Every structure is written in structure tokens, then in C-alpha cells.
């Protein structure tokens, strides 16, 4: 099963920088009040450039990455899940959400300080801090759970001011001014709400900067993923998870835009030029779908034993990345709008118009749009097969997954489906999944 290396490989040079950005993010959120700043909570898809207009000292915590962070800390996650269940919430609900609620109920943040005062994850042996209560909630809503998630957070925390934006206005190919305007007008109401609850004046210049950062983060991330079309792939999906997550934390943040544009993109370009592989024995290329079972990322390393690299997924490419069809008909990074912002309305219009093209929002209207994008990836990234995670922990992203499977099979791509849960380890069978991988690899021709 172990195979000889065909390509050179090396660790990403900017790896530690990515890790530091992530740790600083959770530290800043925890310490926001100490610095006189504000904390806010919302989803990874929320329009995070909007709160940025309130000042440079606003620190977010995005719900899904936080749920995943908890999931990675198996012991704490179990405690959170059981606390949420004890409070009456069903265990088939979104597992990120149950982790999040549980963390509030048991009042544990998965980070703390060591004896030297260094901020560290709890699983490294430090005492968990209490859950830092957000000052306001700024959410979006496209999945059934999004706004409802924070209704419960607000219930549990004792009425936190909350504003949610309905961004479910239809697929990218049916966008109209009326649809864009509906979202823009909500954002304008949201700004008034934010001014009221924070008692701060809104600064449009900060908003413009944040939107520009958003454009850079999302377009550059797509450009980075596009480089993974190369053989050998410069990045593997397990590493991609640690990199795309920055966009889910604060896509409108300068530190994220700068990291993608100035550190990661040049390095991945360099890897392609030099033929540096993520998996040195790359022989087979697959993609996955939906969030992985976070406590069991080792399955991606298991693939490598067969010479198989998972090059990413529509999930990792399109959750944050913005794409467009290029002149030659292939997928590439979305062109950043060439506009200068002159007023709030115009800036919000451009922001919303751009954002409503997000690939991972399209299947909420039709799973067939998602199938088309997946087949495109399978072809353009030259895949041998697809691994679909029937994810019991996220019904939003598994919406249509069975139809995606049928469409991929019709398009000639072998598919392996495995059932699990992104953040509830009790619902993932590692041994059974590995047995499925064994069989799948055999069908792809692995020896």
C-alpha cells in the first residue's frame, strides 16, 4: 500500500503564519473588552464588512468555525453536546450549533492561558476560559438553522441584540436589481441597528476598506484553489482546511486578505512552478464534499497511503472563494470589481451583487446547480473519483447530496459515499469508513 515518492514535497512556509492568525483571532475575541473593544457573533457567511464600519476594535467569532474548533477538542465537544441535549435540543440538529450552544451552557471556551500567560487551546492542557458573551449578533440566513441558531444563543445568554439578514434571494443566474436591493436595504437597516446597540457612529471609509478586503480574500482564495489543478497538486485537502478557515473567520479582515494575497498565493504559485507536491506519491486525485468529520481528519492521511490526494471540494473552494467562468470556458477566480466607492449605497450594492454569486449558496436553490459545479471540478481538476460525506451534522450542505451522487455517476465519475458527522464524533465510524476507502481505492486501481 505504501508507495514511492514520485514528486518532491515540503511543508508550507506560511503554515505557522496561518496558525498564528487563527490563534490571534480567538485571543482577540476573548480579550476584546480588556482593550475597550466590542465582541460580535455571527456566521461564517455573514456580511462581516458591515460591523467593520464601527471601528477597528470590533472582534468577531463566527459560529461554524467555532463549532468545528470545539469538535476538534473531542472531550470538550462531548461535554457541550450532552449539555445541549440535556437542555432539550434534539441531537439531529446541526452539530456545530449544538457545540456552540453547549459551550454557552457549560460556560467553557476551548482556549485558555498557560502558566506563562500564553493563549493556548484547552486540549493542550490549559484551563478553559468562560464563554465570552458577544455584545451583539450579526447573522445572515440562507440555511434553516442560521437565524434560528442565534435566537437560541440570545435565549441562552439573556437577550443579546440580534440582527439577521435574509440573503436567500435566488440563484446567481436569476439575480435582478430587486433581489440585490432587498439585501442592500436590509444591510442599511442593519447599520442603523448597529449604531443604536453600540452607540457608535458608522464610518463608511472603514466599510469600503473592509469590502475591498472581502473582494481580495474571496477572489484570491479561488485563485489559490485554482492552482490545485496542477499535477501534482500543490495542496492537499487536509492542509486546505487549515487555510480556507481564515476566510470563514474574517474574510473582510485585512490580516486574512494580506495572508492570502501576499503569503499563500505566491508560495502556492512557487510550488506549482517547482512541481512541489502535497502528496509526493500522488497517483489518484479525488475531491470530497461538505465539512469533514473534524475529529477524524486522519482519514485524509489514510488516503495518501494509496497515493491518493484529495485536491479539495466545492465546499473548500466555494464556501469562501468566488469564481467565474473564464473566456476559455474554465473556472477561475472571480474578477474583483473595478470600482471606487463613493457612497454607502453604491458600496453595499457592489458588495451584495458580488457576494450573491457564492458557489456554496447556489445549491440552496437547486442541487442541480451544485452537480454542474462538481462535475466541472471533477473534469478541470482531473479527478479519478469523488468521496461524498453524507453529513448528519449539516443538513444545509448535504441538501441535494444524493442527487449530486447520481449526477457525478452519470458523468462517469466513481463515487464513494460515507455517512458521518462534521462535529459530533459519536456519529462517525472510523473503521467502517476506512474499510470503504479500501474498497474505493481498489476500484480506482490502487494496489
Amino acid at each position, binding site marked *: 500500500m505504501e508507495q514511492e515518492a514520485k514528486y518532491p514535497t515540503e511543508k508550507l512556509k506560511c503554515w505557522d503564519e496561518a496558525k498564528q492568525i487563527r490563534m490571534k483571532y480567538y485571543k482577540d475575541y476573548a480579550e476584546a473588552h480588556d482593550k475597550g473593544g466590542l465582541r460580535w457573533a455571527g456566521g461564517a457567511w455573514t456580511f462581516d464588512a458591515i460591523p467593520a464600519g464601527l471601528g477597528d476594535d470590533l472582534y468577531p467569532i463566527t459560529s461554524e468555525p467555532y463549532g468545528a474548533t470545539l469538535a476538534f477538542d473531542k472531550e470538550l465537544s462531548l461535554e457541550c453536546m450532552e449539555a445541549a441535549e440535556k437542555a432539550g435540543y434534539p441531537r439531529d*440538529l446541526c452539530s456545530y450549533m449544538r457545540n456552540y450552544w453547549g459551550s454557552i451552557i457549560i460556560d467553557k471556551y476551548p482556549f485558555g492561558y498557560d502558566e506563562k500567560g500564553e493563549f493556548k487551546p484547552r486540549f493542550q492542557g490549559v484551563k478553559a476560559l468562560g464563554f465570552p458573551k458577544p455584545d451583539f449578533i450579526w447573522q445572515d440566513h440562507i440555511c*434553516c438553522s442560521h437565524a434560528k441558531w442565534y*435566537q437560541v444563543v440570545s435565549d441562552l445568554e439573556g437577550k443579546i441584540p440580534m440582527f439577521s439578514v*435574509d440573503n436567500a434571494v*435566488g440563484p446567481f443566474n436569476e439575480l435582478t436589481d430587486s433581489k440585490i*436591493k432587498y439585501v442592500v436595504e436590509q444591510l442599511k437597516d442593519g447599520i442603523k441597528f448597529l449604531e443604536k446597540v453600540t452607540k457608535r457612529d458608522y464610518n463608511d471609509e472603514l466599510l469600503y476598506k473592509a469590502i475591498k478586503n472581502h473582494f481580495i480574500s474571496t477572489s484570491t482564495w479561488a485563485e489559490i484553489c485554482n492552482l490545485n489543478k496542477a499535477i501534482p497538486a500543490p495542496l492537499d485537502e487536509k492542509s486546505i482546511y487549515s487555510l480556507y478557515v481564515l476566510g470563514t473567520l474574517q474574510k473582510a479582515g485585512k490580516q486574512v486578505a494580506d495572508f492570502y494575497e501576499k503569503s499563500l498565493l505566491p508560495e502556492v504559485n512557487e510550488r506549482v512552478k517547482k512541481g512541489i507536491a502535497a502528496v509526493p506519491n500522488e497517483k489518484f486525485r479525488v475531491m470530497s464534499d461538505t465539512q469533514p468529520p473534524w475529529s477524524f481528519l486522519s482519514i485524509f492521511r489514510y488516503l495518501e497511503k494509496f497515493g491518493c490526494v484529495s485536491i479539495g471540494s466545492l465546499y473548500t473552494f466555494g464556501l469562501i472563494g468566488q469564481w467565474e467562468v473564464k473566456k476559455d470556458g474554465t473556472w477561475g477566480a472571480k474578477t474583483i470589481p473595478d470600482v471606487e466607492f463613493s457612497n454607502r449605497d453604491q458600496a453595499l450594492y457592489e458588495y451584495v451583487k458580488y457576494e450573491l454569486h457564492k458557489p456554496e449558496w447556489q445549491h440552496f436553490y*437547486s442541487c442541480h446547480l451544485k452537480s454542474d459545479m462538481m462535475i466541472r471540478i471533477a473534469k478541470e481538476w482531473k479527478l479519478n473519483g469523488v468521496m461524498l460525506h453524507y453529513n448528519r451534522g449539516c443538513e444545509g450542505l448535504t441538501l441535494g447530496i*444524493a*442527487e449530486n451522487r447520481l449526477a457525478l455517476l452519470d458523468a462517469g465519475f466513481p463515487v464513494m459515499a460515507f455517512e458521518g458527522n462534521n462535529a459530533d464524533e459519536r456519529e462517525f465510524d472510523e473503521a467502517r469508513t476506512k474499510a470503504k476507502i479500501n474498497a474505493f481505492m481498489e476500484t480506482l486501481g490502487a494496489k
Partner: protein
Amino acid sequence: MELIEQFKDLEKNRHKYAKEWKEKNKGKIMGYFCTYVPEEILYAGGILPVRILGSHEPQDVTEPHIFAMFCPFCRDCLAQGLKNRYEYLDGLMIAQSCLHIRQTYTSWIKHRPVEFEKFLCMPHKVQSRHSYEFLTEEYKVFKKEIENWIEKKITDKDLKNAIEVYNENRRLMKKLYELRKKDNPPITGEEVMEIVIAMQMTDKTEHNKMLKDLLRKLENHTPSREVGSRLMILGSEDDDTVFMNMVENCGATFVIDDHCTGSRYFWNEVKNGKDPLAAIAARYIDRIPCPSKDWEERKRIPHILQMCKDWKVDGVIIMQQKFCDPHELDFVAIQKALKAAGIPTLFLEFDVTVPVGQFKIRVEAFLEMIGEEDLF
């Protein structure tokens, strides 16, 4: 009761009714999912809207199409399509609501294509003042699409006529529900459920006529059955008449509900307005919300509490389709509010078929608990 049998007959023979309607009226039939579909626009175009419901039979055809942890209702509905039970449909549509039923719609149109298909972008944030204008614009586009399909212009007069037929239907249903406030309600919860289900698949003009006849008969009707505990049932889509019958044979009567196959379907009317499309949009924005749209504030809770008070409810059965996220996200808060109001609740999870025997034991225990105060 004989008149109820007519509604029952419509419900049981829904496909026969639709086929005969089509033959008789030479019109088109639109299958729809979710009660956020603006039926008035369809009716104005001479189209018969027919809500797609399941058949409560175990089935084995949806597994390749829908992930097994999606709600049993959405799978049951898709099974009806895959088994060709709705082959007479000319069109199929959905108004944006929950994800699960949307999966049914997208799978259906791929594997059982129809002449006309529509995903109508019903806004989620019905508490936003901007949702009215947005939905009106969506309706304008939808109306044009329908006109192109039926090759006929839908006039304001057509719309106003449809609104009147639908509003009359809603008024009659509310009259029927008012009768349930009586100490001895002249109609059971099961019977009302039959009427509402029939309502969702019948020409409303015809349904109005039947309702008027029924209301006349009910005015002086005093049933001999024992009322027992006065219950409310609330939760997800629910057309499980077997369950209703079982409970009402255990010494209880359902006097009110909060279901999309019940009061939520018809509770508010389209108010007069210059622009009929804007008036229809306002009706669907302002209706008693499905939990998927009930945010940021939970507006359904005060409505439920008021119903409990007005219909003198002794206890509430909270039912929900297994895996139904929007309701799962609300029931903890609802239970808490009911408890604070001193109203006992029983929570039950439904599948395509319900384990009547097991549920009976739980219902009997619940009714005993409610009745304890009378005993001591």
C-alpha cells in the same frame, strides 16, 4: 357525519378529483409544496392548485434521491411523484421555505419533469419591512411566467375575484374554528383535519359551498360524544388522521391547532389594496409564520398562547416530523412558554407511520396527568 364524509372522500380520492376537475374544466393543475405558495395567482389564471402530501405508506424509492436524515414528510411526498401518482400535474412549484421540502421539489422536477416548474423566492425575513416590496416584485415575474404558460393575461379583476374566493374560504374556516370554542364542540379535530386537507386540493369555490352547508348543519348540532380534555396540537406538517382519531378516542378533543395543515394555512386574509399583487404579498408576509421564517422575534409563541386561552385548552400535544429542523429549533422555547402559562405539553416525534399503540400509552398518561386536578 355525512357532510364530513364528503370532505373525507375528497381527501381519500384526491387524484380522482383532480383528474375529473381537469377533464371537466379543461384547465391546468399545479402541484405545490408548502403553503407559502400564493394560490390566488394560480386560481386567477384558472389553474387548480393542489398541495402535494404523502400517503403514509412505507416506501423504498427515495433513498437514492434524498439523504435518509431528511424529514419523513419530504421523502413521502417525493415517493408520490416517483410512483407516478401525480402524473396528471401540468406544473410543479414551491415557495421558498424549509430545505427538506425543497429537496423534494428539486428531485421531482429532475426525475418527473413537468410542463411548468417554479421555485418562488419567498423571503425568509418576513419581519423586514423590505420583504413586502421584494415579494411583490417576485410575484410580478411569477405572474408573467404563468401568463406565458397558459397563454392568457391575468387581469386585476381575475386576481380580485380569486382573492375574494380565497378570503371567503378563510372566513368560513374561521367560523368553523369559532364553533370549536363551544363547551361541546360540534366537530372533532380529526374531522377538521379532513376538511383542511381537502381544502388544499379542491377548487375553493366548491369547498366554500361545502363549508357553508356544513356550517348550517353544525349550528344546531350537539354531538353525543364526551369532550374530555380540550387539546391543542401544534408542530410540523401533520395530516395524520389516524393519530388524531386515536387521541380523540382516549377521552379528549382537539379544539385548536397550529399547523400548516390547519390554522396556519388560512388564518389571515388578503386585505384590500390598490395593487392586488402587493395585497397578496402582504398576506403571505403577515401570515402566522412557519418557524423557518419566525425570526428574529418569535411571533408564533404569543399567538399560540392566545389560542390556548381563547379555546380553553387543557393541554398541548407538540408533534413534529422527525428531523424537522425549523420546528426542532422552536419547540424548546414553545414548551417553556406553555409551561410558564401553566399548560402541560406532550412532545411526540412523527414518522411516515406512527406507532399508534406506543403513542396511545403516552397519550393516556398525559391525559391522566391533565385530569389529575379534577380527581383531587
